[in-house]
């Protein structure tokens, strides 16, 4: 980690009580109340789930989209440690923090959605595992990755607590942990796509393809960079810090590269399978497809030019659009373009929406508290001098 010439991270400081944290608190309290009902009286009491739609937004949004949003840590770590681009190092910690929350909450979200959650230990019990299952791969990978990320993030806590000894011990292992932290998300982010592959004809042809694992992996990578753009711009604005444009601009170029490959694969796949016809018929699914494509193509126009990439407004908007596009692709595959036949239908209940909102509120609140109290963001004074 030869990054000593870059600003060392430091706590932002400041008060923890403001309108944002209070709103988060209210949302979290609502979520807790709903979850209490859910765990006492079952899924049927609060969700609109049925046998045709056994997965609702708690899986499609909280877990599938949530974990894709949480790919910032993985994408940036890959850039810094695998491709040895040390100049992006200040982005690692905040990205990792967001990932940490995203994944930990995705893991918790799975528990909320499991009808008989008390049987979950079977998944990790060697005598009852099913190694041929995609779900098993996802579950084990995500669980491991959560642990790996907490270890990756542990130096921050050790720094704060002044436990240099522990920190040194962990850093000796860090190269292995970081390698694991790059491999694991690649495995399960692609497997999240495989989950849809095994659903076969129940998924609309526009989102059902053998290329899904690749599409989900590529989109997870650029969504990771998009989240970093989003998070960095948002943090700088909210904490009134200097924008990190000098890092974001070149990173956005890498993001566009991944995005371009993705668009080629996505469109090529739709064309090669001859399903483009399904995208021009008058249906909600076709509309969703074009909406999604628009979100993917717009950033190319928005920040395609080098000069435009220096404009934080455009960077931010491109990040948001890519997050939205990736989310739409996942939402369409798992819910909007998902059809089990019969007259089954699904729309989330108010309670489900509130729990999902609560989950995001936990992420925001956690991010605020930790960045204000722990050394995550780069020290501002040094930045200003530079």
């Amino acid at each position, binding site marked *: 980690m030869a990054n000593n010439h870059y600003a060392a991270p430091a706590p932002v400081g400041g008060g923890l009580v403001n309108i944002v944290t209070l709103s988060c608190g209210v949302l979290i309290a609502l979520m807790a109340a709903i979850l209490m009902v859910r765990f006492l009286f079952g899924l049927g009491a609060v969700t609109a789930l049925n046998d045709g739609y056994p997965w609702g937004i708690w899986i499609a949004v909280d877990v599938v989209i949530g974990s894709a949003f949480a790919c910032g840590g993985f994408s940036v770590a890959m850039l810094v440690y695998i491709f040895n681009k040390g100049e992006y190092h200040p982005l690692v910690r905040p990205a990792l923090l967001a990932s940490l929350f995203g994944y930990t909450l995705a893991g918790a979200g799975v528990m909320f959605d499991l009808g008989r959650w008390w049987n979950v230990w079977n998944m990790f019990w060697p005598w009852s595992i099913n190694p041929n299952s995609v779900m098993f791969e996802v579950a084990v990978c995500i669980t491991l990755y959560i642990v790996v990320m907490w270890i990756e993030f542990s130096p921050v806590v050790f720094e704060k607590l002044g436990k240099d000894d522990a920190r040194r011990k962990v850093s000796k292992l860090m190269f292995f942990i970081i390698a694991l932290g790059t491999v694991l998300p690649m495995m399960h982010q692609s497997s999240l796509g495989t989950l849809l592959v095994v659903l076969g004809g129940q998924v609309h042809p526009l989102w059902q393809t053998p290329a899904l694992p690749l599409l989900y992996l590529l989109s997870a990578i650029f969504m990771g960079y998009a989240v970093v753009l989003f998070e960095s711009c948002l943090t700088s604005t909210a904490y009134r810090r200097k924008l990190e444009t000098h890092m974001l601009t070149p990173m956005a170029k890498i993001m566009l590269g991944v995005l371009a490959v993705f668009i080629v694969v996505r469109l090529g796949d739709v064309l090669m399978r001859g399903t483009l016809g399904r995208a021009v018929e008058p249906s909600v699914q076709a509309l969703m497809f074009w909406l999604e494509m628009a979100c993917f193509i717009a950033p190319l126009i928005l920040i395609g030019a080098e000069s435009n990439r220096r404009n934080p*407004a455009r960077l931010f908007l491109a990040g948001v659009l890519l997050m939205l596009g990736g989310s739409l692709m996942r939402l369409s595959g798992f819910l909007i373009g998902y059809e089990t036949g019969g007259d089954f239908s699904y729309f989330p209940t108010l309670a489900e929406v509130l729990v999902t909102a609560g989950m995001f509120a936990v992420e925001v609140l956690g991010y605020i508290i930790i960045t204000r109290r722990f050394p995550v963001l780069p020290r501002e004074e040094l930045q200003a001098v530079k």
Partner: protein
Amino acid sequence: MGNLNEIFDTGRETLRDVERRLDMPRREFLQFCATVAATLGLPAGAEAAVAKAIEAARRPSVIWLHFQECTGCSESLLRAEHPTLEKLILDVISLDYHETLMAAAGHQAEAARKAAMKANKGKYVLVVEGAIPTKANGIYCKIGGQTAIDMLKECAADAAAVIAIGSCASWGGMPSTISPLSDSSPTGSAGVAEILGKPVMTIPGCPPNPYNFLAAVVHFLTFGKLPELDKLGRPKFAYSRLIHENCERRAHFDAGRFAMEFGDSGHRQGYCLYKLGCKGPETYANCSTLGFGDAGENNWPVGCGHPCIGCSEKGVGFQKPIHQVAKMLNVTPPLQYPRIVEAQGKAASFASAAAVAAVAGAAAGAAIMLTRNLGLSHAAEEAERTKAAKPEDKAGA
């Protein structure tokens, strides 16, 4: 099927004799013979052989021993509603020793037994009712100073056939119940076969259906041998099927309709008693197909709303708690059955649609505002930079 009069030879003298002897009309007698033949699963026409065998009145000597038991088996045999049952059994056989029914007492009774054994050596039928205590050399059950073990061995030595009636004699029954706190029953009770060390015919049940016993005896009279037995010595005609297989409530089981507690609506509607602990699924007996005690077909535990306790089955009756759910020997039902009409989901409610719209709107609004602010500050910065750059340009020029 032929002329019934010919098959039964209804004009024969012996039929009139049996009518007088048994004090029952011929019609009823022949009905009884047909019932027994059907219970045994014998082919059509066998009832005539049964009738002739009973008419012949060879009256084999029967010695009936009582050990650790409640005499319920004898009682059920005698208290059957059928008006001539006890007459028949007492007339068809020569009951030379039965502690409850014999007139003799004390040494006289024991002398009668010894005399019968001597006179009918190798020909008498030995019926055993009750388990045999084995602990402390069997001192827990003594008759005329003789332990149950000795008496059984003595009587069995020259018997033509040994029949164990009831669960106690068959495999130990209630006295052999082992408490969870010890590894044997208080008196070490055992069944007849265990003491004799050889298989005997067993008619388990607490009490068994008298017809199962009677049919087996009549089979012996008719054919001179015991009916076909399973590996536990039970006659196959009565014990080859699980109670569950032919249960009158079986349709409820298959449809997943269970009484969940006594007196609930399912229980009142006659639903399956499996979840109340019915041991029918792991008990081999014909209770569900052969009415008990001639009092109508509902006159058995399941028929009157109580789960079967598996009284005839070793390891089940008196051993498993009454309301413990039975181990399914064939198909285990799932915990829950799918509903027939599945909820298919509802359209968006106003509240949920509004919530989704509000979240989306708030996110979009915030994103637009932030983009605008970022854009404005960027424009300002750019403007400042150009302003700062201009004087330099001038200076340079």
